[in-house]
């Protein structure tokens, strides 16, 4: 059932209104107006999302709401509309984007309370929300690409928000360039799909219509298209090989990191795969690739996280690792579980970033965990919130992350991907280890700050504390929307998404229990190791690091991947462009052609100008010349007949 629902247009346009307001009136009307409007528009968007979701939930499964903002591109048989569609998948995503996004906006009012560039900041934040909502609500692939690109642009603008710092500007650029590399794949994927569907008479790239006619696409074409699209997804969602931008994106304001990691941007790749699941399902080899890359990324990022000392950097690698889990879920066909993990991850990752932001804010910009410690006495609320987030991300049973991660792992096991499952379980242990390492280093042990600074540490103000509390509650209880089958009300979100994402057959109850027990056991081992290493015997990690120096260095340097990319790609490209193309082709060949053309035209101009003597007799002569030519031409042609 399809129901017209014009309020969707409003839902999408609310943040856009915020952008315009902030850009044109922001500085003039002042900080409180900017705060009110920026938070207000996202809150209204959230309210509209809730309304639409409630309406959708009362309709039969498989229904959707839609609204048409207008025609977009009509050229020949090509018909693209600005069509918004609100189905179960879009509902879940837009609730997360606008809901978590709204909390982050509220938090930002406090965090950016001193920054003189508040209007620009909130304009970008609103634009980010707008782009992500467009991506999620778009009814066709090309409109989604507009949102996709908008998200990339906003990440660049916000990462490099404090652009007068050259390093920050560089990191912003890095994020942009890496994303562009992925976008090339994504665009090529769109082209392949477009030509494949167009040859069967479908010119709209509309998701619903593509889904209906997916059978027309040959598996080979589906494989090519999906691999290309997935390559694009690895860029946005920070997976191997394009994950390198995300850790460096930490230089932006911390709420931005929360927005990028939780509500927007990195989940875009997972969303695209889930949205196009009917195409990925045509290509088992692509599914294998998705699952494998996800799992390897999850493990790889978790190991790096073990050795980082910057609190936000650890969180960044944890995001990469968690997104890896989502791709594992998608790759084994459990698209619903992957989206469920997107949701719970949004809760706890936003919480962790905002908590880390509170710590950083309280410490006057300090991000190195080696200079923290003992903060729980000064910041009990933040400590409690961070504990909730850490438990949730470590997937301790009962907390939100547990349910979603467990569903993914079970799907991996039951679908026969035992190796991937094993790696993922080990990664679960690593997750417990590095997250509790972060937690203990920050809040426990002896304070490593100087006395005076430690005394100045304070809890965040109310606007920053409130989102923490809400997100902590969501991190603890948010998993209840997706309980295992047969427990209480069962997997609500899975059932809600099923018409879009399909469902995987559940394992027998006993196997479920056993698998959960194994995963949880490994997680607890990780947590206990962290407890021993960072609370009970604080000297142990140093000794370990000294003992396995090579490994530690390798992890600490992030496997030298940045250096490798620099050597393999950046330098050759720079050499090609400056030494060969720049110095020879451009300055010798192209400049000569360009300058030569210009000079020739100027010469022509002078020649033509000379005709204008100002003398009427000359003019008449020229005129008569023209007349004679024309008359002669016609006389000749008359004679010929």
């Amino acid at each position, binding site marked *: 059932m399809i129901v017209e629902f014009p309020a969707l247009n409003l839902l999408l346009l609310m943040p856009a209104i915020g952008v315009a307001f902030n850009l044109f009136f922001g500085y003039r009307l002042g900080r409180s107006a900017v705060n009110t409007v920026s938070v207000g528009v996202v809150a209204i968007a959230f309210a509209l999302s809730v309304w639409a979701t409630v309406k959708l939930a009362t309709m039969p499964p498989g229904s959707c709401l839609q609204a048409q903002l207008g025609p977009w591109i009509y050229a020949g048989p090509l018909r693209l509309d600005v069509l918004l569609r609100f189905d179960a998948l879009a509902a879940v995503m837009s609730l997360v984007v606008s809901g978590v996004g709204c909390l982050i906006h509220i938090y930002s009012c406090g965090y950016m309370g001193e920054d003189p560039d508040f209007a620009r900041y909130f304009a970008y934040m609103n634009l980010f929300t707008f782009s992500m909502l467009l991506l999620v609500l778009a009814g066709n692939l090309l409109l989604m690409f507009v949102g996709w690109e908008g998200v990339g642009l906003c990440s660049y603008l916000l990462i490099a928000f404090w652009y007068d710092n050259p390093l920050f500007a560089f990191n912003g650029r890095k994020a942009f360039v890496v994303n562009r590399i992925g976008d090339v794949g994504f665009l090529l994927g769109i082209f392949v799909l477009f030509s494949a569907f167009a040859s069967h008479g479908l010119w709209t790239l509309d998701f619903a219509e593509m889904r209906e006619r997916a059978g027309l696409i040959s598996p080979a074409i589906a494989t090519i298209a999906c691999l290309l699209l997935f390559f694009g997804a690895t860029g946005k969602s920070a997976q191997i090989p394009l994950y390198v931008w995300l850790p460096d994106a930490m230089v932006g304001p911390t709420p931005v990191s929360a927005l990028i990691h939780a509500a927007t941007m990195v989940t875009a790749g997972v969303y695209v795969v889930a949205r196009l699941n009917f195409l990925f399902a045509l290509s088992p080899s692509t599914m294998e690739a998705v699952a494998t890359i996800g799992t390897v990324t999850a493990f790889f990022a978790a190991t790096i996280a073990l050795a980082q000392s910057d609190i936000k950097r650890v969180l960044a690698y944890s995001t990469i690792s968690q997104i890896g889990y989502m791709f594992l879920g998608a790759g084994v066909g459990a698209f619903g579980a992957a989206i469920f993990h997107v949701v719970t991850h949004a809760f706890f990752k936003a919480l962790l970033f905002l908590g880390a932001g509170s710590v950083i804010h309280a410490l006057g910009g300090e991000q190195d965990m080696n200079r923290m410690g003992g903060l729980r006495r000064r910041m009990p609320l933040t400590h409690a919130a961070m504990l909730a987030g850490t438990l949730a991300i470590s997937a301790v049973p009962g907390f939100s992350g547990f349910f979603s991660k467990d569903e993914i792992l079970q799907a991996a096991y039951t679908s026969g991907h035992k190796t991937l499952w094993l790696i993922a379980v080990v990664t679960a242990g690593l997750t417990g280890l590095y997250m509790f390492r972060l937690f203990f280093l920050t809040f426990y042990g002896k304070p490593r700050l100087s006395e005076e600074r430690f005394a100045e540490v304070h809890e965040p103000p109310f606007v920053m504390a409130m989102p923490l509390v809400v997100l902590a509650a969501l991190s603890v209880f948010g998993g209840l929307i997706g309980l295992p089958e047969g427990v209480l009300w069962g997997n609500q979100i899975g059932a809600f998404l099923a018409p879009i994402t399909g469902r995987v057959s559940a394992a027998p109850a006993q196997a479920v229990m056993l698998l959960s027990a194994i995963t949880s056991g490994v997680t607890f081992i990780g947590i206990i190791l962290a407890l021993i290493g960072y609370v009970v015997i604080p000297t142990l990690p140093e000794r370990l690091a000294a003992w396995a120096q090579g490994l530690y260095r390798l992890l600490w340097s992030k496997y030298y991947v940045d250096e490798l990319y620099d050597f393999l790609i950046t330098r050759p490209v720079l050499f090609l462009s400056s030494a060969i193309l720049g110095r020879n082709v451009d300055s010798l060949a192209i400049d000569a052609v360009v300058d030569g053309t210009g000079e020739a035209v100027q010469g022509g101009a002078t020649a033509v100008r000379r005709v204008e003597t100002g003398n*009427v007799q000359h003019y008449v002569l*020229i005129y008569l010349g023209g007349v004679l030519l024309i008359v002669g031409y*016609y006389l000749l042609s008359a004679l010929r*007949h």
Partner: protein
Amino acid sequence: MQALGPLILSWRSVLAPGIVALTAVVTMLVGSGLSEDESESVGWIALTGLVAAAIASLAASGDHIVTFGGSLIIDDYTAFFYLLIPVCSAVVVLFSFDYVAALGLPATEYYALLLFATTGMMLMAGAGDLIVMFLGLETMSISAYVMAAMAQRDPKSSEAGLKYFLLGAFSTGFLLYGIALLYGATGSIKLEAVAQMVRKHSIALSPFVLLGLGLILVGFGFKVAAAPFHVWTPDAYEGAPTSVTALMAVGIKLGAFAGFIRVLLIYLAPLHAQWSGVLWALAALSMTVGNLAALAQENIKRMLAYSAIAHAGYILVGMTAGRSEVGPALLYYLLGYAFANLGAFAVLVAVEQAQQSGTKLDDLSGLARNHPMLAAAMALFMLSLMGMPPLAGFVGKFYIFSVALESRYVWLVIIATLNSVVSAYYYARVIVAMYMREGAERQAQTRQPTLLFALAVAALATVIIGLLPHPYISASSAAYASAEQVLRPATAALQTK
């Protein structure tokens, strides 16, 4: 001849031009009774008359009807120009008020002549026979000769008027001779009858028809300033008072092209094979000469004169294609061209007055600092003339070139596109001067509400016509289609034969 039907005398065909002509008479009567200081107020009478005529243009719209024994035609094509031409003249009036006073032009004569010229232009658009066409052309031209020479304090103005007149008279001779030859060959001056005659193979290729066609091409080529009949343009445009230049660059072009397109593309369509070659050459030459010469100009009015020649070339590209698909493109192009040019001349008028300066490129240096709004508007008009998306100039150019390409005039389109590239340089020079050069500190901001209103109209039109082209394209299509109605039955009859 029976096909022309009974003699219809319809007020609808003469209402709009009649209002303009009548207003001209009223202007003279009222103006003669006023002292020199008061005579400015006749501008308001002129404005009222033009607005009334624009509204009255609705009367001329509708299906194709031939009235006054074939002299005047009522259809949407006529109505299109009956609306557009008075609007353009009204915009000229709007920015003339203070300018006429500042230059010491005789206000009564100025406005009366402007209205007479407008009447002539409108007659050309609505003319159904070659004599009325000629009458319109002469009414328009003679008024323009006088107006060009009106600034008696400025010897350049007299020179402009004289040169324009001499060459104009010369050219009139050729046009009239061409009409006479056509009449001799076909036995009629009525366009519809001429069209029916030239469909017959034996008459179409007679030397009289061909020579007549050639001389008509010369005559119209002069009025639309196509090379090599363009030589008067730079001197006349430069010397004439700027508001008169605007009238010459916009109104006269509109009138001349309205007649030219109707005569050639609709009534002489059967001779397409005979005239397309000549138009091809005129188009290529006009674009190349116009754009190349514009590069070397230091005076903006002169530069705009060459730009007008080049634009005539672009329009001729479309006319060369000659298919009925190109008609709407031509009308749309004229729309965009008219407003961008009106705007550019309005800015020049404003600059001349605000800065008490001339119209050299250097006089625009630093305009962005002294008069940011004027500079922004000028930049907009230059970009539109350049053909920058999403402005009207771009859509029009794209439209014409794409139809010409579909008609397989590949080389002509290549020449046109290369010329567009060249033109970007001299339009951009204006923007560079305004925004990137330091100018002398000037002040004395004159506030002229009417001029600013004229600028706003031109700027809005340039943006809206380009950004939302659809209603204007469909209006152009409807106008052209109704003018083409005259051909359909006959063509159908020809095919069944």
